[in-house]
């Protein structure tokens, strides 16, 4: 019985549509859980700046406030270790997702980012067996997710030697930065067959190609509605084909249910894996319909879904 338990969400960033969707899903699912009496409280906390030090302080405050579990989207996989350890020592359950932490006492709901990067290349290879030049748009330098996805992409390219990465830019996961970086490097690049991304930069890349007057390559999308809408447009106009992949913002709700299960005394392995959310040519229309305008394609999880994920891992 967890009806007296309090769960907190510690979030390090709210400045993009993915995080907003994540907070919204959390709000939607947890408020129902609270009114159903499953848990006593499920409050969300966001730091003003996207910084590990601030989030560490936030976690320490949550410890003081007597939460029973902290669900964590971490700014850094390691820099919060000290604070997470303190929480564990205070008897608090810590469940991290999306941005997971390495501290062994915490649970991790991880997406296999490396696999995600690799899958992108595999898809491109399947579409273009003859290979070609790739442009890679990366995220924020020095951040774990950026490194993982990029490593996956490079692994994929190593397995498909017909491809070559001819340009790599850091888009800081911000569309305008990505667009700017691509526009800058594009004139100096040979013909590009495909653009591999980390999610959210597809639309900006397409704009940059258009502005430079270059043929639009195959651009891997990242589940943003504007990307999907653009894709749909191109598909209708000229049969454009690509795929879209990203982690669903609703994974926060999965983390919530996992935390609830742990508080409930269930045996849960420390490492859980959720599949990423992938949209293909055939599921595009349907996904576009369910995605709010200007938002991100999403999946929310129920208690039963969580149960399945836990059982799958055991």
């Amino acid at each position: 019985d967890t009806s007296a338990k309090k769960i907190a969400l510690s979030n390090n960033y709210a400045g993009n549509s993915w995080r907003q969707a994540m907070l919204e899903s959390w709000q939607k699912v947890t408020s129902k859980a609270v009114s159903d009496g499953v848990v006593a409280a499920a409050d969300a906390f966001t730091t003003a700046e996207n910084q590990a030090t601030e989030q560490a302080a936030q976690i320490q405050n949550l410890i003081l406030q007597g939460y029973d579990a902290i669900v964590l989207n971490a700014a850094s996989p390691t820099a919060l270790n000290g604070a997470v350890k303190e929480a564990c020592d205070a008897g608090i359950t810590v469940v991290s997702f999306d941005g997971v932490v390495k501290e062994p006492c915490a649970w991790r709901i991880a997406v296999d980012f490396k696999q995600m990067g690799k899958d992108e290349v595999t898809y491109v290879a399947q579409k273009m067996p003859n290979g070609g030049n790739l442009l890679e748009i990366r995220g924020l330098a020095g951040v774990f997710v950026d490194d993982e996805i990029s490593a996956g992409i490079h692994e994929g390219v190593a397995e498909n030697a017909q491809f070559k990465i001819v340009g790599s830019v850091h888009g800081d996961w911000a569309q305008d930065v990505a667009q700017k970086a691509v526009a800058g490097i594009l004139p100096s690049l040979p013909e590009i067959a495909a653009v591999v991304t980390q999610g959210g930069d597809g639309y900006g890349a397409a704009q940059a190609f258009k502005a430079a007057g270059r043929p639009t390559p195959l651009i891997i999308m990242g589940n943003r509605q504007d990307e999907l809408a653009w894709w749909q447009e191109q598909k209708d106009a000229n049969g454009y084909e690509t795929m879209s992949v990203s982690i669903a913002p609703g994974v926060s709700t999965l983390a919530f249910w996992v935390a609830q299960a742990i508080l409930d005394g269930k045996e849960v392995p420390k490492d859980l894996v959720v599949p990423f959310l992938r949209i293909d040519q055939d599921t595009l229309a349907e996904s576009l319909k369910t995605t709010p305008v200007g938002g991100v394609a999403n999946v929310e999880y129920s208690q039963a879904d969580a149960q399945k994920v836990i059982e799958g891992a055991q």
Partner: protein
Amino acid sequence: MTAGLLTPRVLRSLLPALSLAVLLVAIFYLQPRAMSYFGINLLLNLAVPIALATLAQMFILTVNDLDLSIGSFVSFVACIAATWLSEMPLLGILALLGCILVYALLGALIYLRDLPSIVVTLGMSFVWLGLSVLLLPTPGGTAPGWLQALMKLKTPLVPFCVIAAIVIGLVVHLGLMRSAHGAVLRGAGGNPKAVARAGWSLLRIKVTMFALAGCFGVLAGLALVGLTTSADANIALRYTLLSIAGVILGGGEFVGGRVSPIGAVIGAMTLTLAGSFLSFLRLSPDWQIGAQGAILILVLALRMLINRAEARR
């Protein structure tokens, strides 16, 4: 002025402490649990590296310069500490000393070529960040055991972080505000020409101040990594703004060598606590970020009110 003790100057210098006290009381009211050894430790231990970084910034501000690179510098030190310092201590120590040397050289460069420090340190912020990414492309590493042990020290009665803050503040206060040499260093911010005319070398003063800043930056990085136990190239980028805000909040000024080390430490702690205060309020997530701004405004408005009241007396 009848009350001998409560002169405007004394009151003015008490203001930062007063706003900190008000904030603490508010937090204790909202969360009585915080009023304990354990609670205070959790509230304030992350203020120690911030206070050190703030003091580093303060040394630079004293001589009318500004350091936009202190955040990435602290990150870089943290990266060194989590890698070389624990694996190859000698190399780590040499690297840290090298960092301080680089800071001293920057001071010399800025003085000799009469460069705007803000541009030079802006450039350095990229350099430090780049070096961190090279050293630690993906977050990780482990802080040396002794460092972790030091930062987790359980002192009797008063938490280590409080003692550390007091000691740091007092040491710098004695060195900069009370010592004979400190007067010259501050004078160089107030009227550099006058100090030069009295026969002091402004070059040596600049180099000293930048080296001190480097030194405290290194200490900040070590303290930080001791708490977090592992590092990340982006770990302390925010310290740049925090440190400037801390010095100003503590009663320092951008030009003219008017600084206060104790004020700066208090300013750093106030900034840390302002964030905590909010999480105790349990605001709607939409407004949590905005509330950070509101609380800063409130703290400063409070000081203005006290200032006014004092002026009216």
